[in-house]
């Protein structure tokens, strides 16, 4: 059996062991899982066990696995002790508890090495283990510490908080980057994240996953333009009328001169001054100073709401109502009557008349509200007629489609 597996769905070599089932299989599964031997499946009395790469030397045989399970489950075994010997490894009780943060006793540790069938000499609080030839994974004291933790169980390692750090934590650079983002968010930009792989670039992968995108991006531009074009199709779904779709991305790019962190926007930010372009090299920017006293804005997000893959319809609708009627009242009625198909609804224009202009001094008797409605189904594509019919059951008003 080749101990190194290059590819495959399982991370580890998978071996099968037959165990005479004199203990409950469920117990074997649960105990094995928590002692580094995950059981993939059981068919009859055959267990399919995942063996971690550090244990292929001894657990690539049924006898080896049976020996390990006997140690984990504390079932006596008649199997002979493994032969041969490797250089001895010494660990002290203080070292074990000092690494694990545990409170294991001398006798518990002694028992672990006994259960594992390891040849152990004890001098005071020091244990010297001479591993058999089949345990080349036991080389340093830490390897023995792991055996103790694994067998006695990490549930006995109790959560302990770190003491306060004597220095201060430094998140200035991170905060500088986030401050840039906050500034863009305020200007109406939305952040996107795209793939690092593109069709052509200066650096190419030796083993690309997608043969059509074998190169690393030299700039965020190609992806950002592609994303903007796609986003424009969904603009009405996500933005209020009259708001312009503006995007930005912060990501690593790989030109031949060397990797750097790029900030790129789909358009300039006028507020940033005439010299500011649509991209910036954040690797050379002095972000530490910019961020050191900044607290990035915090948001809470609600549960994710999946978007429908069906097309949507946008309807701009204007209607006259007597002065004094609130637009919110009408929107409420529209929303109530439109049901689940209505995914967005906003007022986007108001116009008063009745003997004068909206700004005129004469008394106005009626007012026109224009609403943008976006309709979309999760179950089927919307048909124009159906959407209109749907709106037709709305309140008794004069519909004037814009």
């Amino acid at each position: 059996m080749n101990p190194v597996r290059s590819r495959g769905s399982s991370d580890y070599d998978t071996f099968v062991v037959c165990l005479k089932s004199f203990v409950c299989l469920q117990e074997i599964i649960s105990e094995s899982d928590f002692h580094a031997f995950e059981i993939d499946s059981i068919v009859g009395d055959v267990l399919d066990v995942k063996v971690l790469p550090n244990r292929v030397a001894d657990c690539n045989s049924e006898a080896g696995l049976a020996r390990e399970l006997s140690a984990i489950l504390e079932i006596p075994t008649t199997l002979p002790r493994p032969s041969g010997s490797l250089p001895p490894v010494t660990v002290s009780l203080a070292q074990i508890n000092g690494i694990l943060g545990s409170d294991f006793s001398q006798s518990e540790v002694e028992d672990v090495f006994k259960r594992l069938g390891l040849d152990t000499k004890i001098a005071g609080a020091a244990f010297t283990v001479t591993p058999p030839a089949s345990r080349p994974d036991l080389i340093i004291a830490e390897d023995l510490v792991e055996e103790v933790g694994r067998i006695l169980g990490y549930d006995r390692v109790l959560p302990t908080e770190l003491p306060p750090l004597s220095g201060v934590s430094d998140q200035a650079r991170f905060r500088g980057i986030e401050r840039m983002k906050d500034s863009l968010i305020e200007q109406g930009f939305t952040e996107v994240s795209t793939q690092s792989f593109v069709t052509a670039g200066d650096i190419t992968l030796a083993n690309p996953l997608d043969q059509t995108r074998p190169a690393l991006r030299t700039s965020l531009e190609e992806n950002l333009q592609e994303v903007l074009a796609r986003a424009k199709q969904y603009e009405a779904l996500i933005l209020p009328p009259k708001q312009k779709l503006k995007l930005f991305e912060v990501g690593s790019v790989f030109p031949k001169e060397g990797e750097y962190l790029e900030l790129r926007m789909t358009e300039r930010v006028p507020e940033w001054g005439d010299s500011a372009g649509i991209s910036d090299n954040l690797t050379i920017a002095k972000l530490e100073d910019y961020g050191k006293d900044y607290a990035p804005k915090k948001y809470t997000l609600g549960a994710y709401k999946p978007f429908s893959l069906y097309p949507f319809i946008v309807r701009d609708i204007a209607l006259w109502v007597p002065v004094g009627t609130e637009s919110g009242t009408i929107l409420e009625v529209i929303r109530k009557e439109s049901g689940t198909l209505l995914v967005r609804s906003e007022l986007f224009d108001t116009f008063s008349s009745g003997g004068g202009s909206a700004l005129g001094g004469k008394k106005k008797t009626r007012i026109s509200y224009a609403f943008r409605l976006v309709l979309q189904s999760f179950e089927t594509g919307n048909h124009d007629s159906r959407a209109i019919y749907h709106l037709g059951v709305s309140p008794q008003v004069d519909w004037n489609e814009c």
Partner: protein
Amino acid sequence: MEAETARGHLHPISVALREIAEIFGRMGFSIVYGPELETDWYNFTALNIPPNHPARSMQDTFWIKNQPDHVLRTHTTSVSVRALEQLAKSGGTEMRVLNPGKVFRNEATDMTHEAQFYQLDGFAVGPAGSVTLAHLKGTLERFYREYLGENAKVRFRPSFFGFTEPSVEIEVWFTPLGKESRWLEMSGAGMFHPNVLRNAGLDPAKMQGFAFGGGLERLLMVKYGIPDVRLFHSGDVRFVYGFEEEKI
């Protein structure tokens, strides 16, 4: 009516990292960055994963054409080694670091696998005996409690990674949205292998510490009920707008 400039939206990864950085910041963790196009040394060999080490087969690596000593980093633990080197150079005796960033794995993509994703990786080191596996449990339990909710708790399952000894899988008890509480595998962790400290120029007889690392998207998927990991880096704005957002 004048068009007002409505706020744009922040990507959920950024929203999450701000909260995570703040929680770890309260526990003394700094944030550091490193290259995504990494040398074989920092990604593997310095992390006690020399050529032909079995742990290399556990990670499907993207290699670079005509640069056999370069890879796209498979974890941000590469940044940990760089940070430990800085610690060694400065002669310091303690350090707590979080290194969030993009990592790459050459594996087929599906709803739960992406070839590029973010990793939340971190470590704490101090004088020997001062930073233990119990501190790892305490640190992560506090993090998950503050991030996922008061009833979150952490348990360890023994595992194997080249750069830690002992090594554990972190499982978190959590109630995903609309589902029963259960144990979720969240990251790999352990105590730095002495060889890693040595490779960074530190003396493992005098220093020890814990390290942890896991996918960030996975954490967000369970927290917010996101069904498909490929949404994160698809560039689709509908994903970014798929959450009710409230500014605190």
